[in-house]
């Protein structure tokens, strides 16, 4: 079974169809590239997968869970039963869980972590604190633990730091541990975002243009890191404009244009596909 499956996904913003009936799937341990000209709907698909938007039509399932479908109000056959969330009966509760759309943090808990196209770090917090955010959903301490600091909470706090340090080290940021995120050079900020996403220990890592703004050397290092991440058992889905990166590390590529899927295949197949060439180079005037 595919790890991530996207079926007939459509997203409309008012009259604009940003994503138009796109279907593709992603197998465990794969690196899949999502490419296409600007405005093709790539980032919109990412936002649909991570639950920031709800799809207009179609659905996404991850690891057997349905994680996105049109919101309840859009389905005519079901009345929006929002009060059901307080019904204690287990079966009803389960039914409800299947009906409602998951919130972004619940999707992260299921095992999808992402980075952003425009870097979205917690700028005024240290590198360590940034990465600690990723460990948050794997730990439990609340108000009680914070105020009374029982041994369990102190152990958990140490665990959070240890986990975070491990990913900081993996991304080669150990020297910057206590530096504020905004003071890092650009390339390191990109790495920090990946470290933060990895700390959430995802099964699927979604990278939105990870090589944007990186120089030659940094790009090569990044490609190497992405391969290492995949080898550690994490499936990778990435959007990238740098064709060297896409063709170099992706096993399969999905090409979008104007919200529609126009091609899918290995890098070689995609490069030869006339529709892809047309989308990138424009139509020849006859």
């Amino acid at each position, binding site marked *: 079974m595919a790890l991530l499956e996207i079926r007939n996904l459509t997203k409309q913003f008012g009259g604009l169809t940003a994503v138009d009936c796109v279907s593709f799937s992603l197998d465990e341990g794969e690196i899949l590239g999502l490419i296409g000209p600007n405005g093709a709907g790539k980032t919109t698909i990412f936002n649909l997968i991570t639950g*920031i938007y709800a799809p207009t039509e179609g659905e996404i399932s991850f690891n057997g869970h349905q994680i996105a479908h049109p919101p309840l109000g859009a389905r005519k056959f079901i009345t929006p039963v929002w009060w059901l969330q307080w019904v204690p009966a287990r079966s009803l509760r389960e039914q409800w869980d299947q009906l409602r759309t998951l919130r972004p943090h619940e999707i992260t808990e299921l095992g999808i*972590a992402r980075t952003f196209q425009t870097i979205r770090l*917690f700028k*005024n*917090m240290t590198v360590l604190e940034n990465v600690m955010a990723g460990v*948050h959903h794997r730990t439990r301490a609340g108000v009680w633990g*914070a105020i009374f600091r029982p041994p369990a909470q102190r152990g958990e*706090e140490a665990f*959070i730091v240890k986990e975070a340090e491990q990913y900081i080290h993996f991304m080669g940021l150990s020297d910057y541990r206590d530096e504020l995120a905004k003071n890092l050079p650009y390339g390191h900020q990109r790495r920090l975002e990946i470290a933060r996403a990895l700390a959430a220990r995802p099964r699927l890592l979604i990278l939105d243009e990870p090589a944007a703004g990186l120089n030659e050397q940094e790009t090569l290092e990044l490609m190497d890191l992405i391969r290492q991440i995949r080898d550690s058992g994490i499936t990778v889905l990435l959007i990238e404009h740098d064709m060297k990166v896409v063709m170099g590390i992706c096993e399969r590529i999905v090409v979008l244009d104007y919200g529609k899927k126009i091609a899918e295949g290995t890098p070689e197949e995609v490069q030869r596909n006339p529709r892809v060439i047309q989308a990138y180079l424009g139509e020849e005037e006859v």
Partner: protein
Amino acid sequence: MGSLMERLRRMPLVWQIGLLALALLLPLPLNDYYRAVLWRTGIYAILGLSLNIIVGYAGLFQLGHAAFYALGAYTSALLNLHFDIPLVLTWPISILVAAFFGYLISRPILHLRGDYLCIVTIAFGEVVRLALVNNIFGITGGANGLSGIDQTVLFGLTLRTPLHHYYLVLFFLVLTLFAVRRLENSRLGRAWMYVREDETAAEAMGIDTTWAKLLAFVLGSGWAGLAGALYVARIPVVSPDLARFIESVVMFCIVVLGGTGSIPGVFVGTLGMITLPEIFRFLKTWRDAWMGVAMVAMMIARPEGLWPSRRIRMEIREKE
């Protein structure tokens, strides 16, 4: 000066005990009027610290905090008047009632951002005040409020003088400080900071932003309820004036004046908004003018507050 601060920072116990000793000894040479002023300062410091959880840590605008203060005070007063429960035992119930209303009001509106949230909280504050004025359920005593509340008896000791009440409030203030400092440096405190810095990124990292914001609201509101109960412990009369909009504004200013999110800032703010106006009472309405001028001047010269937290200063200076 700088090196002295640095040295003190490395010895937290020294300055903490020093400040506590100062707080304990300060009222002794003063007369009852100034002891009452100190008591009031303590109450507002607790209110400021509780509002600081909501405004400072979680970054939510709350301009109806006085409503929870009043709810705590009325809960304590009503339980004492109708059921003869000793005031001391009403305190936990005051906290719970205020926290419960904090939950009720914030749960449906948490997805609102910034100014929209602010408008709803102002409206809630007014709803509470008007409900109290209109003698809701016939129990709040209308515009006159409630009177004839018992004196506080603590372990057989009846608290009569302002000095007693000052020490009572001081005890809870220290407790609040302890809790707030620990909250700030915890998993929950970091979650608040993530939400404040970038809500979308926080959500994408697996932080339940609703949980974090809700907890900030509930904790802050509940603690304001305690401040209300402590008010009733000394003043046996409660009136809807407790929930006036200006009260909420004063609490908001305490947090912002000293520096949002900063614990020492709350004390600086309380000093500026409560203690100084109280000492300069003879200037009458000029005090309000001073508040306005001070606010405007500060927004121009020091938008981050008088004693800001390191982090918030960076956030505010960055936006400019």
